[in-house]
């Protein structure tokens, strides 16, 4: 009986030290569902923890990929940024795949739209990009 009491005591004692956190996307640029007045100069992704970004694809409305300077690297990071080429008016989707610090595959996507005007690149409807933690 003493043994069980000891185990129960240790169990309760250790509870506060047990906490966990999942990595997720904290910020994207352009922001999800953003409506831009001109082509964005860069593409950025920020995570709440370090991940290894394996893939990121920018597609236009016809699902044609846009070339930009992305190369997968084994070095983990929480912030990623790349310069973008000039993008034409239209809808774009950004899809990414990353390996989380816990070894889980993460996927996500977000969209943005570019208007035909030549004014400043102010955005509307700012929201964070979607992210999934796949198991």
């Amino acid at each position, binding site marked *: 009986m003493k043994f069980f009491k000891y*185990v129960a005591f240790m*169990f309760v004692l*250790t*509870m506060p*030290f*047990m906490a*966990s*956190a*999942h990595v997720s996307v904290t910020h994207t640029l352009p922001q999800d569902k953003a409506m831009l007045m001109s082509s964005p100069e860069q593409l950025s992704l920020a995570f709440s923890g370090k991940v*290894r970004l*394996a*893939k990121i694809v920018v597609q236009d409305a016809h699902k044609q990929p846009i070339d930009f300077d992305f*190369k*997968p*690297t*084994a070095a*983990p990071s929480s912030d990623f940024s790349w310069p973008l080429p000039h993008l034409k008016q239209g809808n774009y989707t950004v899809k990414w*795949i990353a*390996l989380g*610090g*816990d*070894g*889980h*595959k993460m*996927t996500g996507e977000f969209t943005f739209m570019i208007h035909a005007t030549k004014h400043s690149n102010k955005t509307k409807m700012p929201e964070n990009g979607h992210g*999934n*933690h*796949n*198991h």
Partner: protein
Amino acid sequence: MQFSEWSLLLLLMKLANYTAIAALAGTLLIRFISHFHLNGNQHTAFLYFLKHWQIKCLMVGLIAAVLQTPIEAGAIAESGFMGMLDRPMLEIVWYSVIGEQARLRIVSFLVALMVASLWNVKAENNNAEKFNFALMLIIAALIAYSFSITGHSANENALVKSILTFHLAALACWIGALWPLLKSCTLLIKTDVEKIMHHFGQMAIIIVVVLLVSGLALLQQYLHSFSALFTSTYGQLILLKLLLVSAMLLLGAWHKLFLVPNINRQRYFETLKGSIAVEMVIALFVLITTSVFTTLVGPPI
């Protein structure tokens, strides 16, 4: 949860890993019981069976460990089976915690294979064989620990990782001992079968206590509310595992309290064999369920 051909491969890989660690832990437990409670040379054939079974399962574990990095790389690349050979993806996986886990497992399974091959079953009392057993025990602990390197315990402290390691080791001992126990019914005389079953039954009490205490601690860690046990897929799969383990527990109690004491009566002996076979099938479902909720489904965030 997104299901694809990669999910199935990852699931099979996890199942192979669980089977390997279970076989290793189970054979070690039965080897330990045999060493202390069986006399004479009548059980040499049984020890040979343990050795060969251990080697076969370690081979399965080694293959799974070697394939782990390319399969994970293919799953991430999302470009068909050629993704398994995609160098940047392989590098990403190899330098991540998955690579760390794979490296530990490859080395452990290789050393375990060598140690298992060197096990001289005819000289169990030699110091060399005791050293062989101790070495295998350390390797089994390392392989059990490797499961805490990735997944939901990856970012946790040493305490949580230790709890997971103990939980897995306890489950592995129980499940992995079933096939050797069933084989003991055909390879050993009834008196020896009774001794093995009796002492396994005593060990099982410790195993069940470790399993339940560590299981409760992990449940508290991954499910932040009691309702999540019923409302989340992860919780529902844990409930299914609990149900299956409870069925194994009931069968174990029936063996310990009724069938083993009456083992000398042929009818009960046959029933015991059948019942262990049923317990093995349930154990397989426990491993499949565990593979699913640790590979494809995560705890609710």
